[in-house]
C-alpha cells in the first residue's frame, strides 16, 4: 500500500432540521486504502452526514477538505467530480436498462454508438478485473439479483473515478453469501488505495472488515477507535450511551410429537397484493412454548404465510387449524377470538391507524373492547392504554398522543403490549425489530422470550440472522413460496441457512 494520506476530511459539520440537531460538530477523516466504519443507531445522524458529503443536504456549519483543499459540495454532481461516490440503500438504477446503459447514463455525453459502447465495455471489464467485481453488463438490471445490482452501483462509481466510496448500510439487503462477496470487493478497493466509508449498525460486520470506527450517537461523535483495539461492549456503550445487558436465552428442546399444535397450516397457498401466487403449499405447525423462526429472502412468501396464519389473508388453497380445529381463512374473527395475535411488519399502517390517538389504536384487533351499555367505555380504555404504556416504557405524551407521532421503537412496544395484553395462544411476529435501535430491539426480543416461556407459540419472521439464531428453537427456511428445509439453530450456521434461502443445498427438493 502506498503511503498514508488523507483523502477526505470533514470538520465541524453541523446540520439542524428545525430545532432538531441531526449533526452536531462532527469531524471525520478518511485515509486512502482505509475502510472507515461509521457506526450508529437509526437516527444517529449517519445518513444526514453522508448526504451532506454527497451534496444532497447543505451543512449549516463546517468544512469539507478533499486531499487537503477546501471544497464546496452543492450537489451530487459536484461530489462525483471531487471523487466522492455513494451507494445508497435504494439503488439509483433504471430497471429496464442494462448495467452498461446505466453507467453510460451517469455522465457520458457522447451518443452510445456501437464503437463507444465497446469502449465503455472495455473500460468496465478492466475495472471488473481489477477489483474482482463479477457482474452481467448487458442484461436489464431488473433481471439481476439485489447483490448484483449493488455491484453495478459500485462499478458505476469506479467508472466515474471515485476515490472515496460511501456505502450506506450495504449489507442490510444481502444474504450472507452476497455479504462475503461484497466484503471481498471492499477489501480489494481498499488495497487499491480507495477510501471507503462503510455505514452500518451491525457491530459484527464492522468489527470484521473495518480499519477504524467512528461511532455516532444523537448527532454527535461518541467514539473513535481503531478496529484492532475495539471491544464489542465498549462500542455498544458508545452507540447507546449506556450498558445493555443481553439476556441469556434458553432453547426449548423439541418434544412436540405428543402435543397439539396451537396453529397449523396445511398445504396453504396464497396470492399477494398483485394477485401473484407467492405461497405455494406450506405446511407448518406451531406448538406451545416454542419460537419457530422463518428465514427467507424477502418476497419468498413468508409475509403471506404470516398473514394467512394470522387470519388476515385468505388462503387460495389449503386449510388452517387452531388447536386442531379447522377455521376459515376468510374470517379474521375466528383467529382473533381464538387468541392468535399478530405483530405485523408494517407497524404504521397495518398495526395501527396513524391518525388515531393511541388509546383508539389500543382497541384495534380487539373484538370485545370495554363497553358501558352499548357505548365504548373510553375512560377504561384510556386507563388500559396508560397502564400498558407504563409497563412497556412507551414514550409519548400520553394515551391521547397521535399515533403517527411515535418513533418506530415506541410504536412497536405499544403494538407488542397490545398483542400480549390479550394473553394470546400464538403470536406471529413479522420483522419485529426492523429499524429499531438496540435498546428497543432487545426490549422486544425479551418480551417475545417472556411470552414463549409463558406458553405462547411464536412464529418469528426476521431478516436478521443474529435474531433468528438467538431466539428460534427451530428455523424453517422458505424459498419461492415453499419450505425448503428446517434446521436447529445450534446445529446449523448462518452460511448453511443462507444457501438454503437461495434454493441450493436444501434438504428437500425446491
Amino acid at each position, binding site marked *: 500500500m502506498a503511503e498514508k494520506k488523507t483523502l477526505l476530511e470533514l470538520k465541524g459539520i453541523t446540520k439542524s432540521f428545525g430545532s432538531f440537531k441531526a449533526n452536531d460538530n462532527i469531524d471525520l477523516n478518511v485515509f486512502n486504502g482505509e475502510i472507515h466504519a461509521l457506526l450508529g443507531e437509526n437516527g444517529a445522524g449517519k445518513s444526514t452526514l453522508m448526504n451532506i458529503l454527497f451534496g444532497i443536504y447543505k451543512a449549516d456549519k463546517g468544512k469539507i477538505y478533499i486531499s487537503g483543499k477546501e471544497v464546496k459540495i452543492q450537489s451530487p454532481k459536484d461530489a462525483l467530480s471531487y471523487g466522492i461516490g455513494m451507494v445508497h440503500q435504494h439503488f439509483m438504477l433504471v430497471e429496464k436498462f442494462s448495467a452498461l446503459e446505466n453507467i453510460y447514463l451517469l455522465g457520458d455525453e457522447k451518443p452510445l454508438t456501437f464503437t463507444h459502447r465497446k469502449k465503455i465495455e472495455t473500460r468496465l471489464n478492466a475495472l471488473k478485473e481489477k477489483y474482482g467485481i463479477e457482474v452481467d453488463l448487458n442484461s436489464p438490471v431488473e433481471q439481476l439479483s439485489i447483490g448484483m445490482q449493488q455491484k453495478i452501483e459500485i462499478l458505476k462509481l469506479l467508472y466515474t473515478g471515485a476515490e472515496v466510496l460511501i456505502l450506506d448500510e450495504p449489507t442490510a439487503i444481502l444474504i450472507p453469501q452476497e455479504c462475503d462477496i461484497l466484503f471481498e470487493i471492499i477489501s480489494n478497493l481498499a488495497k487499491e488505495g480507495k477510501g471507503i466509508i462503510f455505514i452500518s449498525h451491525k457491530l459484527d460486520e464492522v468489527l470484521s472488515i473495518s480499519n477504524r470506527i467512528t461511532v455516532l450517537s444523537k448527532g454527535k461523535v461518541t467514539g473513535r477507535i481503531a478496529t484492532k483495539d475495539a471491544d464489542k461492549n465498549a462500542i455498544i456503550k458508545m452507540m447507546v450511551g449506556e450498558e445493555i445487558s443481553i439476556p441469556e436465552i434458553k432453547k426449548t428442546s423439541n418434544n412436540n410429537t405428543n402435543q397439539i399444535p396451537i396453529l397449523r397450516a396445511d398445504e396453504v397457498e396464497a396470492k399477494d397484493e398483485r394477485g401473484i401466487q407467492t405461497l405455494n403449499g406450506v405446511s407448518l405447525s406451531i406448538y406451545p412454548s416454542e419460537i419457530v423462526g422463518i428465514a427467507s429472502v424477502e418476497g419468498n412468501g413468508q409475509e403471506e404465510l404470516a398473514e394467512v396464519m394470522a387470519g388476515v389473508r385468505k388462503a387460495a388453497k389449503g386449510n388452517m387449524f387452531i388447536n386442531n380445529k379447522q377455521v376459515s381463512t376468510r374470517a*379474521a374473527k375466528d383467529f382473533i377470538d381464538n387468541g392468535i395475535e399478530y405483530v405485523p411488519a408494517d407497524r404504521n399502517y*397495518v398495526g395501527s391507524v396513524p*391518525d388515531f390517538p393511541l388509546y*383508539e389504536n389500543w382497541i384495534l*384487533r*380487539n373484538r370485545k373492547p370495554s363497553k358501558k351499555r352499548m*357505548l*365504548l367505555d373510553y375512560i377504561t380504555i384510556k386507563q388500559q392504554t396508560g397502564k400498558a404504556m407504563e409497563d412497556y416504557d412507551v414514550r409519548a405524551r400520553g394515551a391521547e398522543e397521535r399515533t403517527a407521532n411515535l418513533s418506530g421503537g415506541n410504536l412497536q412496544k405499544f403494538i407488542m403490549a397490545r398483542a400480549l395484553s390479550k394473553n394470546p395462544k400464538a403470536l406471529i411476529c413479522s420483522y419485529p425489530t426492523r429499524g429499531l435501535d438496540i435498546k428497543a430491539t432487545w426490549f422486544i426480543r425479551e418480551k417475545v422470550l417472556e411470552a414463549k416461556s409463558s406458553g405462547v407459540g411464536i412464529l418469528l419472521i426476521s431478516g436478521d440472522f443474529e435474531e433468528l439464531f438467538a431466539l428460534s428453537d427451530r428455523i424453517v427456511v422458505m424459498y419461492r413460496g415453499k419450505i425448503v428445509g428446517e434446521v436447529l439453530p445450534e446445529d446449523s450456521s448462518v452460511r448453511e441457512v443462507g444457501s438454503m434461502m437461495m434454493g441450493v443445498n436444501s434438504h428437500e427438493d425446491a
Partner: protein
Amino acid sequence: MKMLDSIRDKNIISKCIILIISIIAALLIGAVFLMVLGVNPVESYYYLLIRPFQSLRSIGELSIKLTPILLIGIGVSFTFQAKLTNLGGEGQICMGAIGMTLVGISPLAEALGPWWILPGMLTAALFGALWAGIAGFFKTRFKASEIITTLLLNYIAVQFLSYCVYYPLRDHKGNIPQSAKVASTLPKLIEGSRMNAGVILAVIGVIIYWIIIRKTKFGYNLRVLGGSIKASVYGGISKKKYYLIAMLISGAFAGIAGSIEIAGTQTRLVEGLAGTYGFDGVVASLMGMQHPVGVLLSSILLAGLSVGAETMQVKTGVSSLFLNVLEALIVLFILLGFSFFNGKGGKNE
C-alpha cells in the same frame, strides 16, 4: 417555525383557523368581483351574510334550507369516515321524496292522520338507502367507483321523479305536473315563518351521528376503514360489510331529507325539489371536516348564504349565481390550506 409547530399540535384548532382564514380570503376576493360590477361590497355582504339572521321570517327560510343540507351533510359524513364518497345526495333525496309521497297520498295516510309521517319517513329512508345501496352493492361486489355510480344514479332518480309527477302520481286537478297534496304536514315551529319540525329532526340526526361515530364500535370500525384499509384487515373488520352499511345509512339520511321536503316545505311532489342540496351537503361535510359541530356550522353558513343570495339579488342586483363563485373560492382555499399544512407535518421523535 415554533408557531407553526404549536398550531399543528392542536389539530382541530389549526383546522378551524384554516377554515376561517379561507372564508375571509374568499370574501375578500369576492369583494373585488363585486367592485368590478360596480356594487358596494359592504352593502352586498350585509344582505348576504347578516340579513338572513335578522328576522324571524328569514331565519325560517334559513331553517328550511338548513334541514336538507344538514341531513345530507351528516349522511355523507358517515361515508367520508370510511373514505367512501357518496355524491348521490340529489338522487337519494328524490327517491326519499317519492317514497314519502307514495305514503302521503295513500289511503293509509288518511286513516292515520298526522301520524302518517312516521311510516312515511321510514319508507323515505328505505327508498334513499336502497338507492345508495345500489352504489354500495356495485362497490363491494364489482369494485365500481362509488363516486361515479352515485353521481350517475342522480340522473336516473331525477328523471324518474319527473316521470312520476307527469304520469303515475300526477294530480289531475291542475295543469301543473305535480302530485296531489300529502295528507298533512309537519308542525310549524314559529308563527309567521316557514320553520317546521324538520329542523329538529336534522339536529337530532347530528347528535345520533356524533354518538355513533365517536362512541360505538361500529363508528370506530368505520373510522379504522377510513384511516387505513390495511389496519382494518388486521383488525378483522369486513370492508364490504361496512362500506355497504355506510352507504345505506348515508342514503337513509338523504331519504329523510327528501321526506321533510315533502311533509314540511313542498307539501307535494314537484320537479326540481332536490335543488343543489345534494352537493351542498357534500360541501358542508367537507368544510365541517366530518365533525358534528363543524358540519352543523358549515350547513348553517351554506343555508344562510343561499337565503342571503336571494336578498342580495333583489336589493343590489348582483346575481345570486355570485354565490357559486364564493362557495368555489371557499372550497379552493380550504383545500389549499390543508395541503399546505399537511405537507409540512413531520414526525417528532
